[in-house]
C-alpha cells in the first residue's frame, strides 16, 4: 500500500479525484467529510504511505494501523466515484489489522520490546483473514453466474477485443471462443479457487493458478493494484509456517553460495521458532466472539443484497452493486443530460453537468442512477439559491450494459430534486429496445454555460 499511495500521488490522481472537482458525491451520513485543502491532501497521502510502511515493518504497529485505517477510510468516503472494489478490500483489511496481532513476530515492535514476541497466534486470526479473501472470490464468482457472462461472454468479449493489438496473444483475443473460455474459466476460478487453496494436496497448483490468473488480468486489463493485492493475500492460504520454511531454504542456499557465512546464520536464526509463551485467545473472548460473528455476518449479508432483496440486475440499477464484490462483471457506459424547470415562472434550461463535476466524475456518474440523483439535487439547491425556489430537475439518462443496446436508465418525468418515488430507476428487463433511441423529453432548451 505504501507503493500504492506513492503511485496515486505520482499519477496526479490526488488532484484529479479530490482537489479539482468542485462537487463531490459523498456517502449518505458522511456528507460532512471534505477533502483537505491543496497541499494537505498530498501530505495526507504521503503520511498514508509512511503509515503503510510502519505497518509492514511492525513499527508502532497499533497506532499505525488505527491511523492508516482511519486515513484510508477518510479518503474513500470523500467521493463515491472513487470507489473501487480493491480499495474497499484494503479498507476492510486495514480495519481488521487494528485488532489483529500482526506485530508479534518479525516486527520492529517485537525487536524493541521482546515481551511482545509470540511464536504463534490463535488460529481464528488466520481463519478470519482467509474468510475475507474467500468472500471476495466466492461472491465475485457468484456475480458472474448471469446470462451476459456465461451465454454471451460479455463483457470479456469487449475487453479482450480491445486488447487485440497485443504482441503474440493479440489475434487470439479477438476470437469468440477465447472470450467464452475466459468467461467460464474466470467464473469457475473465482468459485473454486479458495477450496483448492484450502486443500493441502491441491494448494501448490492452486497457488500457481492464482499467480498466472492475476498476472494475466494485470497484463490484459487496467485494474491497478488489484492483482498484486490478491496474489499477496493468497499467501494466507499457504501453511502458516511457510515464511519460516522459506527463510530456512534461503539460509541453506546462502550457506551453499557463501560457504557458510554470517548471513546464512542470521537468516537461519530468524527462521527458527522463538521460545516464548503461546498467545492465548483474546482478553475478552465473549466480546471478541460477538464482534467476530457480527463482522462475518455483515461480510456475508452485504454481497447478498442483490440476491436477497431482489433488486434486479445490480450492474444496471446499482442497487447492491458496491461493497458486494461485483468484480469485473459490467462494461457500462452512460450519458446524462439535466433539464431544470421552474413551474412558477415557466423558465427552463438544460444544465451542463460539467459546471459541477469533472469529466472523470461525469463519466462515472452517468452510469449510476443514485449519483445522477445526487447531482440533480445539488443542481436544484444551486438553482434555488439563484432565485428558483421550486425548481424541478429531470434527467435524460441512457446507459449501455455489456454491449446491449442503450436504454433509458431513469424515468425522464421524475423530478429528481423532489421526494424519491420507488420506480424512478427504469428496470433493465422490461424496456423494449428498438432501432430508435428513446427521444429526449424536451428539445430545445437554452444550454446553461
Amino acid at each position, binding site marked *: 500500500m505504501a507503493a500504492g499511495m506513492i503511485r496515486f500521488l505520482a499519477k496526479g490522481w490526488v488532484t484529479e479525484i479530490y482537489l479539482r472537482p468542485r462537487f463531490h458525491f459523498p456517502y449518505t451520513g458522511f456528507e460532512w467529510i471534505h477533502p483537505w485543502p491543496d497541499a494537505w491532501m498530498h501530505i495526507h497521502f504521503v503520511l498514508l504511505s509512511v503509515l503503510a510502511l510502519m505497518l509492514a515493518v511492525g513499527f508502532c504497529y497499533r497506532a499505525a494501523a488505527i491511523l492508516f485505517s482511519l486515513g484510508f477510510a477518510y479518503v474513500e468516503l470523500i467521493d463515491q466515484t472513487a470507489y473501487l472494489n480493491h480499495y474497499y478490500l484494503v479498507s476492510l483489511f486495514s480495519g481488521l489489522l487494528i485488532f489483529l496481532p500482526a506485530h508479534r513476530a518479525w516486527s520492529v515492535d517485537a525487536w524493541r520490546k521482546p515481551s511482545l514476541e509470540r511464536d504463534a497466534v490463535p488460529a481464528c486470526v488466520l481463519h478470519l483473514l482467509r474468510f475475507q479473501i474467500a468472500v471476495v472470490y466466492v461472491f465475485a464468482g457468484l456475480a458472474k453466474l448471469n446470462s451476459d457472462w456465461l451465454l454471451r461472454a460479455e463483457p470479456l468479449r469487449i475487453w479482450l477485443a480491445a486488447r487485440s493489438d497485443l504482441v503474440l496473444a493479440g489475434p487470439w483475443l479477438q476470437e469468440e471462443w477465447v472470450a467464452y473460455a475466459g468467461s467460464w474459466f474466470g467464473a469457475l476460478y473465482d468459485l473454486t479457487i479458495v477450496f483448492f487453496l484450502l486443500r493441502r494436496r491441491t494448494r501448490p497448483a492452486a497457488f500457481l493458478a492464482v499467480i498466472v490468473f492475476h498476472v494475466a488480468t494485470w497484463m490484459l486489463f487496467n485494474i491497478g493494484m488489484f492483482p498484486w493485492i490478491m496474489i499477496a493475500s493468497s499467501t494466507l492460504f499457504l501453511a502458516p509456517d511457510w515464511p519460516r520454511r522459506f527463510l530456512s531454504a534461503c539460509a541453506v542456499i546462502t550457506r551453499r553460495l557463501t560457504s557458510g557465512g554470517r548471513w546464512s546464520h542470521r537468516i537461519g536464526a530468524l527462521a527458527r521458532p522463538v521460545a516464548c509463551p503461546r498467545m492465548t485467545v483474546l482478553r475478552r473472548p465473549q466480546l471478541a466472539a460477538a464482534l467476530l460473528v457480527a463482522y462475518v455476518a455483515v461480510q456475508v449479508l452485504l454481497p447478498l443484497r442483490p440476491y436477497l432483496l431482489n433488486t434486479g440486475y445490480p450492474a444496471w440499477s446499482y442497487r447492491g452493486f458496491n461493497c458486494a464484490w461485483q468484480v469485473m462483471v459490467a462494461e457500462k457506459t452512460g450519458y446524462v443530460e439535466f433539464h431544470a424547470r421552474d413551474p412558477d415562472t415557466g423558465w427552463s434550461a438544460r444544465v451542463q453537468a460539467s459546471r459541477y463535476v469533472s469529466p472523470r466524475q461525469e463519466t462515472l456518474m452517468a452510469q449510476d442512477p443514485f449519483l445522477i440523483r445526487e447531482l440533480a439535487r445539488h443542481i436544484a439547491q444551486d438553482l434555488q439559491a439563484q432565485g428558483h425556489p421550486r425548481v424541478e430537475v429531470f434527467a435524460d439518462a441512457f446507459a449501455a450494459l455489456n454491449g446491449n*443496446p442503450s436504454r433509458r436508465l431513469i424515468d425522464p418525468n421524475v423530478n429528481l430534486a423532489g421526494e424519491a418515488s420507488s420506480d424512478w430507476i427504469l428496470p433493465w428487463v422490461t424496456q423494449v429496445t428498438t432501432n430508435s433511441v428513446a427521444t429526449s423529453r424536451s428539445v430545445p432548451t437554452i*444550454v446553461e454555460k
Partner: protein
Amino acid sequence: MNRSFSLLRSAWAVASISLVLTAQCLSAQPAPSDKNFSREAMLRSLAQKVIVPGYASLAGNCRALADDIEQFNATPTQDSLDRAHGHWKAALEAADSLRCYQTGPVADRQFISTFNYWQTIPSRIEGIVRKPLPAFDQAFLDNEGATVKGLYAIEYLLFDRRGGQPGEPPEAAKALELLSASPRRREYLAALARDVADKAAQLSKDWSATGLQSAAEKFAAGGQASLNLLVNQLTQSLETTLQNHLNFALALPTPVDRQLNRIKGSRSGTSLQSVVVALEGVDKFYRGEHGLGLHDSLNRVNPAVATRVQDKLTAAIAAARSIGEPLERAVVDKRAALETAVKEAHDLEVLFKVDLPSALGVTITFTSGDGD
C-alpha cells in the same frame, strides 16, 4: 548420480514439451472470422481512404481559392469574385468534413483554428486593413490571433457585409465594392488565402508522407489508443454540431436577423452546409469510404448496434439535408424540420456516447459544453 540424471532428464522432457507447445501456439495463428479485418487494417484504411484524400481535397481547394483571389485582385469583377466564392465554399466543405478528426498534424502544428475557428472580430479586421502599414507577410500573420485570420476571416472579406450586426460597421456593403475600393483590403485577403493554402498543403504533405514516423503510420499503429481518440473525436464533433449549431439556432431569441453573427457561416449562407458536411464527415469515418471503417469493427462484435448506428447516421444526415435552407432562415420558416434534425442528431449523439464505446471498449471523455 542416478537421481541427478533422472532429474535432469525430467527437466529436459518438460522443457522440450513446453518448447513444442509454445511453437505450436505461435505458429497456429487463429483464423480471424473476417479475414480482411483487423483494427490496424481498419485504421490504415481510414487514413488512406478518408484522411489522406480529405487533406488532399482541402489543399487543392485552398490553393484554388488563393489562385482565384490573386486573379480577382488583378481584375476585380463579379465573375472572379463568384469563382473565389465557389472555391471558398469548396475549401470550407473539405475542412468541415475533417472537423470530426482534429488530431495529428493539424493539432501538433496548431492549425485547427485556421480552418475551424469562425468567431472572427470584424472591428479588428477593419482596423488591420485601415492601417497603411505593416506589410502583410507571414511574420505579420503569425503574430496575429485566430480572430483575424483563417478561413472565416476570408469569409468576412469575401462576402457581402450585412450591416446591423454587433461588432461590424453599421452599414451594409457589397464585398465587390469594398474590395475594389481598397487595395490594402485586397492585399490582406490575398495574404490570408496564401496562409490558408500553405497550411493546408503542409497538412496534406504530412498525411501523405510515408515511413514509420508519418502521421498515417502513427495513426494506424496506434491501436486501441487511436480508436479511443477517433471515437472521442467523432462524438465531440456530433455534440458540437448538435449543441452549437442546430440546437443553438433553435434556441436563439427572436428576432434572429439581429443575431446572424452568432450563427456560423451565415454570411456565406453555409450554415446548413457545414452541419450536413460535418455529419457526412462522421459518416465517412464510420463507413470507411469503400474501405474498412468503424462499422466493420462494430459489426464484428455487435451487429445489432452497428446497424443501429448506421441507420441513425443515415437518418440524421437526411433530416439535416431536409432542412433545405440555411439555419438562420430555417429557424424562422422551417422550424419543424430543424426540430426533427435536432432530435435525430441527439439520438445519434446518444448512440455514439453510449452504445458505440460500450461495444468497442472505448473510454469516452465527455466535453459537453466545451464548444468549438
